[in-house]
């Protein structure tokens, strides 16, 4: 029961912050409310007893990405920070809301018509031990994940180099 109450609080925080994040005119406020959404999602992971995933979410998203966004906003859009806002056309907003509602109803019906609730009784109420996560992450056996782990390190290096290449100033010849 306490879990459900915690989940409801988190859901209200996530959905409210997401709606404000989408509707607010100022980009800096959108980034701030994105931070709240990310914290709420980390809270959902903690509720599911995936503490490692929640910690990674806070460390990477809330610590790293939000900082990146704030730097980008400061570098890019002085006008939007000073309150000069983007123009939104009413027709686009209405059309977008209609399409989003249509998709929401469709996916919601598909989810509710499935018989998930019988299987959901099998959720164990124990945290996954850290040693299991660590061994699976760097183990090379079956159902172990050293190959994607190495791939993602190479991928991050490629992204660092690509980001530098794209964002650096070109020399005037």
């Amino acid at each position, binding site marked *: 029961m306490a879990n459900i109450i915690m989940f409801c609080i988190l859901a209200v925080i996530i959905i409210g912050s997401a709606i404000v994040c989408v509707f607010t005119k100022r980009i800096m406020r959108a980034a701030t409310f994105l931070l709240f959404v990310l914290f709420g999602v980390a809270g959902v992971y903690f509720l599911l007893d995936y503490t490692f995933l929640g910690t*990674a979410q806070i460390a990477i*998203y809330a610590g790293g990405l939000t900082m990146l966004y704030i730097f980008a906003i400061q570098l890019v859009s002085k006008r939007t920070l000073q309150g000069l806002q983007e123009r939104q056309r009413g027709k686009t907003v209405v059309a977008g809301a209609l399409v989003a509602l249509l998709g929401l109803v469709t996916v919601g019906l598909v*989810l509710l018509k499935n018989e998930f609730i019988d299987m959901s009784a099998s959720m164990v109420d124990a945290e996954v031990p850290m040693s299991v996560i660590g061994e699976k992450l760097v183990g090379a056996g079956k159902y172990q994940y050293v190959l994607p782990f190495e791939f*993602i390190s190479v*991928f991050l290096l490629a992204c660092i180099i690509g980001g530098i290449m794209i964002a650096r100033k070109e020399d005037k010849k």
Partner: protein
Amino acid sequence: MIPVELLLGLSTVLFFIGFFGFVTRRNLIAMLISIELVLNSVDINFAVFNRILHPGELEGFYFSLFSIGINAAETAVAIAIILNVYRRFHSDQVNSIENMKL
């Protein structure tokens, strides 16, 4: 224990809020923030399916973990591109980018 419909409903609502933002916003960084909302809802889905339907295994867990890492890299590259666009076109609205090259 939390019913699985609530968790999946939360991620669905989050997904379509992000979708709405992506369709309606005209600012590049705001569109990127909407994409972050969508990606987060998908990560919740992976974790929930793994935890509730297959509690003994960790596939969805690792998929979410790697997905978080890849999202970080993707955002960094996207922000680099946005900075470059701003330097070249002096605007961060999508309307201003009609040609890839001047």
